[in-house]
């Protein structure tokens, strides 16, 4: 990719609101004529990124280049790009024609030229007969078309779309997706699209940028993102998936669910803990068990239109989601096969909770903003130490009073036989826990760790 192909280049972009970091060092190149989607859950920073590109907000640091020129400090009205807003933001005091003509009139374009352009763009969005209509009398879908026309009439080099279809009903959304895709192909300009709807992103985009917690998690084509997610967040967010703990035994050999599988991944090293992703449609299910890698019992079976969705409990106690065109009876024993190329192995981001702590006396240690009881370990009061706690040993409890400290559940991932839960503690640091209990996002929990489960080590040199 030469520099000439890049229309927007984002480098080291960061933005905070007060203490809350919304964007953390974003780097992104957007190619000329590309349909790029910023995808992620709410609060991941996708809208902030779009608003920084549009110029509505100022970045704390970093640069945005457009066509080789630094536009970081250029006000929005001088940027050659236009935005389609989530709630359309059509001017209620103007009719459809004047809304669309707004930008052209500001440019002092001759009246007959404006008329021609407005007519042409309204034709393109199939709103020809609506020129004199009051925008408030239009339906959501029609308002959306006018909003798109109002942005496109200025012939921007880049069109920014902030969840433009979020307010429409499902059927309308599907139709508009197809129209947007066609519009993009016809116009040949760059579209930057923000959405939290993974299906929409997969349908529309040339490339998807998956974001979470102010960071880019993965950039790739829809197929790349779907087939080769780089971490458990992406795998969980895009499509349905079975995410399991595994160990990479050696190149091309991975163990999970107490079973060894052949895979195609290399270069992780030997005996390294990894996350394994298997898409539900990639598990072969059959009634014969003699040639199968594993056996299991069908726990539930739901018809989903094209396929059946089944939950199967394996002989080793893991629950797998499987999609197949054939239904298998609940309670029946089935054989399962997973092919090497369908196993996606990902590096684990964390293997255990690790913090820097301070000893308080010989049998207490302070970390996560609280004092925990620990076993005497040879360190004395005031010593700085490294504290490690296994995921399994973190106890989450309903009653906040019972915990040594408290936190809020921020993400939940089902891993076949347990939940992997991320809790943001009061002091702002994260703690991860393995649990059988079912929690909901945003639950407040008490956090308890037994003294014998706190491992205390000397601080590593580089800390």
């Amino acid at each position, binding site marked *: 990719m030469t520099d000439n192909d890049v229309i927007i280049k984002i480098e080291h972009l960061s933005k905070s609101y007060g203490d809350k970091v919304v964007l953390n060092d974003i780097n992104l190149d957007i190619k000329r004529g590309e349909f790029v989607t910023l995808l992620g859950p709410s609060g991941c920073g996708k809208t902030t990124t779009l608003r920084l590109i549009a*110029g509505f907000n100022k970045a704390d640091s970093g640069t945005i280049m457009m066509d080789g020129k630094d536009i970081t400090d250029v006000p929005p009205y001088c940027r050659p790009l236009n935005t389609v807003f989530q709630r359309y933001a059509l*001017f209620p005091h103007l009719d459809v024609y004047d809304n669309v003509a707004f930008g052209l009139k500001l440019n002092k374009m001759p009246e007959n030229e404006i008329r021609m352009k407005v007519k042409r763009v309204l034709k393109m969005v199939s709103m020809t007969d609506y020129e004199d209509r009051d925008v408030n009398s239009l339906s959501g879908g029609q308002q959306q078309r006018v909003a798109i026309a109002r942005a496109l009439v200025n012939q921007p080099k880049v069109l920014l779309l902030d969840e433009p279809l979020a307010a429409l009903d499902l059927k309308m959304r599907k139709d508009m997706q197809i129209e947007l895709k066609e519009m993009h192909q016809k116009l040949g300009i760059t579209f930057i699209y923000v959405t939290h709807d993974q299906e929409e992103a997969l349908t529309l985009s040339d490339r998807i940028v998956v974001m979470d917690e102010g960071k880019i998690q993965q950039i790739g084509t829809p197929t790349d993102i779907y087939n080769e997610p780089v971490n458990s967040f992406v795998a969980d967010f895009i499509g349905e998936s079975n995410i399991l703990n595994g160990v990479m035994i050696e190149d091309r050999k991975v163990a999970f669910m107490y079973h060894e599988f052949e895979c195609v991944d290399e270069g992780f090293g030997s005996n390294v803990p990894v996350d394994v992703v298997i898409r539900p449609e990639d598990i072969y299910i059959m009634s014969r068990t003699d040639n199968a890698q594993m056996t299991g019992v069908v726990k539930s079976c739901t018809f989903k239109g094209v396929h059946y969705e089944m939950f199967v409990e394996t002989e080793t106690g893991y629950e797998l989601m499987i999609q197949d065109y054939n239904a298998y009876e609940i309670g029946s024993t089935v054989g399962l096969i997973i092919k090497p190329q369908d196993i996606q192995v990902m590096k684990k981001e964390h293997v255990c909770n690790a913090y820097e702590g301070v000893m308080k006396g010989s049998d207490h240690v302070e970390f996560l903003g609280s004092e925990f009881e620990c076993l005497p370990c040879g360190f004395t009061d005031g010593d700085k130490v490294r504290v490690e706690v296994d995921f399994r040993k973190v106890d989450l409890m309903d009653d906040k009073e019972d915990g040594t400290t408290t936190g809020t559940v921020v993400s939940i991932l089902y891993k076949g036989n347990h939940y992997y839960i991320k809790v943001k503690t009061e002091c702002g640091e994260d703690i991860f826990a393995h649990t059988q209990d079912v929690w909901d996002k945003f639950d407040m929990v008490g956090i308890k760790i037994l003294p014998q489960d706190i491992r205390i080590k000397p601080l590593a040199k580089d800390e």
Partner: protein
Amino acid sequence: MLPYVIFMAIFVVLPLLLILVYAFQDGEGHFTFEYISKFFSDKDSLSTFAVSLEVAIENTFFCILIGYPAAWILANKKYNRSTVTIILFILPMWINALIRTLATAELFSMIEIPLGKGTLLYGMAYDYLPFMIYPIYNILNRMDPSYAEAAEDLGANQWQVFWKVTVPLSMPGVLSGVMMVFMPTVSTFAISEFLTNNKIKLFGTIIQENINSSTWNYGAALSLIMLIIIGITTLLSNSKEEQTEGGLI
């Protein structure tokens, strides 16, 4: 429900009926158009009415001129983050207008500024400014910021955003403000009494004079005329305001 009806009957309907009855009666209680027609033939009354309208228009104009920018600054998060400043602006509304007017008059006599048209307008603008600021502030504060962003996105600089989007969208608030400033100014008399020593007579002044000198019937006729004018303007502005939400009333 019933207590409400009784309250309304005694304090709203009955006084209005009394005005109506007195306006069409002569001193002996006979029906007459005399007092209504007296207003239209009396040069003094008509010119007082014209002066009242003129003062009201000028006062409304000054209130918009000062009130709109004030409301805009108050509603702008960049310049004002606290609600305390807004309360400070609205605070004078809660103090009796008479006290404020008397204090203003004292102020003028202390710094030896002669009372006249200028002091009258000053006092009026001071008294009625909060009624202009509040509805405009209200509508600006609730305005979806994406309208301004959309305009900016389409190539409008700050100045163009203000004139082409913010001002038109805040018109219902301005209209509310006008209603709350213009109408009371026409009928006021205390401010002109204290701030011009009755040199300038307003429509309210002649109503008050007639009531005071016990010519109730003429006073009632003048009140009725004013009520009709207020009623017509309210209806007119309400029909305009129907489509757009906002404002104070």
